Each structure stands twice: as structure tokens, then as C-alpha cells.
């Protein structure tokens, strides 16, 4: 009986030990599982494989990066992927803003909850189910083309379908931070703006948006990075198109060329780091 309080006393008397025990599991997770795998990725990119047996040969060289640079198709794929990521982010931001604004500022408390559940609901369903549902939508005989037919439009599998599907998949990740950001805007600020004679549009442009930037960037980090790494949606609704993820998958699993796949995987990492650095310059990260 005496033992327990004494042990408890040790932790009580040594706050640093307490802190260390508390923080070491998550730090180990971050350090070992996350950063080490990134480091291994980077190192592997400088090795090469035996072209026949596909065993990795640990010879240091820059061939992978040189190929990445010299072969046009990888540049095309990178630019295409970037475009898709930008479009998905813009589409999501445009759709998410009115929804988030309505939820945070207009709807009653009860409706607020209902809408929040409605926004989160798609996250309960599997990614694949949703992607295949869109595959059925975009099919030549599917509901979307049935509806578009009278106005003479046809939307088959391809880049547009990919952007729409990805924008649908990542929409909750844009709405949630925007909603949280807008909730923080006091109603009195909006009222003050109206009292001073600003119309709705001016209030949104000059008052709401500047406060909303950090939330918008937070959301865009999700939509942008999730799109950069995605390779499944484009396989399901993208027709013959491919994104960086597909090229990585093909080199690693089809070509058994792990070093080249690693070099290729560095591309989205670098893009993301550049994007984060750019976001940081705007100061948006300070307010997260």
C-alpha cells in the first residue's frame, strides 16, 4: 500500500521526467516513423537498381534525378498534377465559402448542427465507394450525361471528371477550417461594417476575407496536398490520364525501380515545401 504513493511521488517531484514520459511516445512516432521514412526516401533516390533482377544496388549517383529532369513526360505529368491540385483547391474554396458562411453566420444553432453533420457525412463512406459512384455518374449512359444531353454537352472520363471528383472528395476538409475561421468573426464586426454603409460584397471583400485568409490557407493545404498525392481517382474517372502518384506507383510496383520512384516522390514533397514556405510568408501560419 505504501509503494504506490511513493512511486507517484517520483513523478510529482520530477516534472522533467513527467514531461519526458508524456512527450516521448508522440515524438518517437514523429521522429522515427515519419521523419526517418522521409530520410530513407531521400537516400534511396540516390541509389540504383539492377535492371534485370531489380535488386537495389547501393551505388551513389544522380542518374534518377537526371532522368527526371531530362525526360519530358515527367515534366508534363508534374505540371498536369499541379494544375489539377490548383483547380481542385479553387473549386473547393469557391463552394466552401458560401456554405461555411451560411453555417457560421446565418443558420440557427439547430441548423448549424444539422449542416455540420451533413458536411461530415460523406467522410463516413469509403473513398473507393465515392470514387466509383462518380465513375457511374460520368459513364456515357450515366445520370450526369442523361441530364446534360438536352443542352448538347457530354462529360466523359478525363481531367474534368478527375477535378470534379477530387473536389467532391476533399470538400469537407475545406469547409471545416473555413467554418471554424468564420465562427471566430464577431457578428458586431459585420454589423459595424453595415452601419458604416458598406454593402454585402464590400463587407465580404474588406472585412470577412482578410480575417478568413488563415482558414482558407489551412483548408488549401489539405486540398492541395491530398490532390498532389492522389493516384486512385484519376485511375477510376481520369480516362487515360496519369498523375505524379501513378508514375510513382508504376516505377515502384510495376517497374520495380524503387530508387527512381523515390526520386519522383521527392517532386510533390518539394512542391509542398515551397507551397508551405509561400503560405508562411503571408503570415497565415501565425494565426492558425
Amino acid at each position: 500500500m505504501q509503494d504506490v504513493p511513493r512511486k507517484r511521488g517520483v513523478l510529482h517531484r520530477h516534472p522533467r521526467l513527467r514531461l519526458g514520459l508524456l512527450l516521448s511516445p508522440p515524438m518517437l512516432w514523429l521522429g522515427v516513423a515519419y521523419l526517418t521514412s522521409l530520410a530513407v526516401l531521400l537516400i534511396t533516390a540516390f541509389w540504383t537498381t539492377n535492371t534485370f533482377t531489380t535488386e537495389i544496388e547501393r551505388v551513389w549517383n544522380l542518374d534518377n534525378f537526371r532522368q527526371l529532369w531530362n525526360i519530358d513526360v515527367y515534366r508534363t505529368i508534374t505540371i498536369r498534377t499541379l494544375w489539377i491540385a490548383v483547380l481542385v483547391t479553387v473549386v473547393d474554396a469557391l463552394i466552401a465559402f458560401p456554405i461555411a458562411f451560411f453555417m457560421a453566420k446565418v443558420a440557427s444553432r439547430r441548423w448549424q448542427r444539422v449542416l455540420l453533420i451533413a458536411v461530415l457525412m460523406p467522410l463516413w463512406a469509403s473513398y473507393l465507394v465515392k470514387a466509383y459512384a462518380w465513375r457511374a455518374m460520368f459513364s456515357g449512359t450515366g445520370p450526369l450525361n442523361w441530364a446534360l444531353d438536352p443542352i448538347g454537352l457530354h462529360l466523359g472520363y478525363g481531367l474534368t471528371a478527375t477535378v470534379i471528383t477530387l473536389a467532391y472528395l476533399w470538400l469537407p476538409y475545406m469547409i471545416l477550417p473555413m467554418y471554424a475561421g468564420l465562427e471566430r468573426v464577431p457578428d458586431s464586426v459585420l454589423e459595424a461594417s453595415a452601419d458604416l454603409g458598406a454593402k454585402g460584397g464590400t463587407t465580404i471583400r474588406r472585412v470577412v476575407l482578410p480575417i478568413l485568409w488563415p482558414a482558407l490557407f489551412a483548408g488549401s493545404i489539405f486540398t492541395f496536398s491530398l490532390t498532389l498525392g492522389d493516384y486512385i481517382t484519376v485511375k477510376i474517372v481520369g480516362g487515360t490520364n496519369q498523375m505524379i502518384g501513378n508514375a510513382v506507383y508504376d516505377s515502384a510496383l510495376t517497374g520495380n525501380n524503387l530508387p527512381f520512384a523515390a526520386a519522383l516522390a521527392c517532386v510533390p514533397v518539394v512542391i509542398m515545401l515551397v507551397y508551405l514556405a509561400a503560405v508562411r510568408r503571408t503570415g497565415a501560419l501565425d494565426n492558425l
Partner: protein
Amino acid sequence: MRSVRTLATAAAVGAMILTFGGCGSSDDNKSSNGGATFTPPDLPMKKSLGKGEGAVSILAWAGYAEKEWVTPFEKATGCKATVKYFNTSDDAVNLIKSGDYDVVSASGDASLRMIAAGSVEPVNTDLVPNYKDVYPFLKDRPWNSVNGQMYGIPHGYGANLLMWNKKDVNPAPTDWSVVFGPDAAKYKGKVTAYDSPIYIADAALYLMNTKPDLKIKDPYALDQKQLDAAVALLKEQKKNVGEYWSDYAKEQSAFETGDTVVGTTWQVIASAVDPKKADVEAILPDSGSTGWSDTWMVATKSKHKNCAYLWMNDIISPKANAAVAQYFGESPSNPKACEFAAKGFCDTYHAGDAAYAAKIHYWNTPTAACLDGRKNVKCTDYQQWTQAWTEVKG
């Protein structure tokens, strides 16, 4: 905030590395295999068969190890089977290296890579009693043997067929020009092709028949010029392709919805398409086609080799071989399986029809040493095919 700064530093480092990569010397064009002839690692072969170890770990193509015939095998031999299905030949080559599996079903585009890497060992066919019944034209082939030594037991084979929707495709095509030639433009956006570097061989086969100047003798032995020609043809074809398929369900649904009307397929998919939704027909064109011939192989690192041999013998036994061939949709390797298969099955799949089998160019692994025996030129290897395939898709 500090973490963000570290990230920025890392970004700078990353960017530097990339820039550095861009301006390195560009003299070498080395290939580690350098046209050397292929000698497999010297591995011992099993001399005698002992008692089963009580367990076996099977690495197989989807559909090759189903309960229906695995359970009777377990009961008869006492080898408790664990089954892992792989998706592509390339997955199989990776997985077998782990040493977790005892026996693997390898297609010809994987088998040589496994042999060269020492992942699988020579097989003593005397220890597999059912081997004597296997069709002779499946024995001692370039994809399952090296220098006359068998590395596995033939399991079954099939051809990549040309399938079309009879309602939409008129007149009925007779060869691959409907997907590679000018006719393909008639079905723009509704043509399909197999999503794998090995599909380059299909283009090469078409060129072999239509462009004799290129002097292609074996669609798996392409020098740089021949590969370039195949890639150019595939890029031209891509304009008409709606989507590429790699899994069976995707192609089946694309034909059923009418999004795809013509392209390459497997018999099993052709049979699976619901005739109420799409009236399809699938043929092996007279000009030939690519195809697969699968082989069961024993992993070098296996700890259950007796059970692995027992499995190889069981899976080509008439009853099991019939069951697996019908389940997957391919020709069995054991003629006696036809007695157990459904009536007419062996005719549909042309089992044992040597003339039909001769029209099939079985999947093989392209290597730097030309498979067609040319010595004066270096051929393109599978990694080059993989990159070429990425380029085709653009």
C-alpha cells in the same frame, strides 16, 4: 514556428539537390546488366520428397487458390495452406523476395526475373508424379526453364483476346488493326488497352505482322529502334483509347455500360460480361496474340518445400487443374483435366490445340540480351519498357 522554419530549410536543401541533379555530367548510359548472357545462381535442387511440414504459404494470381480445391488438398496432405493473392507480375517478383512464401504462380514476364534474382530454385520434376501428363508443348519453354533445367510446373495458359461489342462495331473485326490501325478512329474514345508495360509487346506484334522492315522477330526482343516504333504506334493509339484497364471488373463494367466497345481482353472477362447489357464477341485473331503461360515455382528460402512439392503436384492433378482452369478461365496444363471440366470447356479454351497455342506469344521478361538470339545489338529491358509505358500515357 520553429518547425516551419526547419521545413523551409529542408525545402531549400531539396531544391539544391534537384538543381544539382540537373547539372551533373551526362556521359554515361550504363546498364548494370550490359548485354551479358543470363546465368542463374547455382542453387541445389530437391533430391527426394519427405513428409509434409504441416504448412504451406501460397503466393498466387487471384483465383488460383480457392477453397474449393485448397481444402481437399489440406485434408489429403495435412499441409495447412495460407494464401496471398497478388495483382500483377511485378508485385509477385517483389513479394517472393521476402522469403515469406513457399510456392508461387509466375507468368512468363515474372519467372525469369525470379530465377535471375535467386528467389526460386530448380524443380525436380521426378518428384511431381502428375508432371508426366502435362502437355508436351508447355515443357522446357524459355519462360519456365534455363539451359534445359525446369524451374517449375506448368499450370495453365491463355491468350489475350480481341473483344468487341457486336452492336457498335461493324463490320466484325478479324485482327488487331481495329485497335492499332486507321479503323480505330471510328471508335474514338471507346477503345481500351491493357494498362501495363507488357502491352508494348501487343504493339510490337502488330508491327511484326504489318511492318516487315522493322524486322521484329519476337515481340519481347526489341532494340531501341523497334521499341521507339512500338511506342509511336501506342501514342497514336492513345488518341482513340477511352481508358486503360488493369483490373478485370473495370473492363467488364466499361463494356457493359458501353463506354468501351473494342479492345484486348481475357476469356474470363468475355464470359463475365452480362449478355443482356452488352452483346460481345472475343476471338484470337489469325495473326496471333500475346498471352500467358503460368508456372508454379518453389521459393529458395522456403521452409516447407515438401508441402510446396505436394501443392504443385496437387494443382495439376486432373480434378484440381480442371477446377482452377474453369474458375479463372484458361486452358488447363493437364489434358486429363478435360474429363472433369464442364462439357465443352476444353473446346472453348482450345486446350491442347497446339496450332492455337502456337499463335500465342507468351509473356516474357524483356532483357538487355536479346531474347531472339541477336548478338550484335542490345535490346531494351523491362525498366526501359516501364518508362516507355509512362511516356505513352503521357
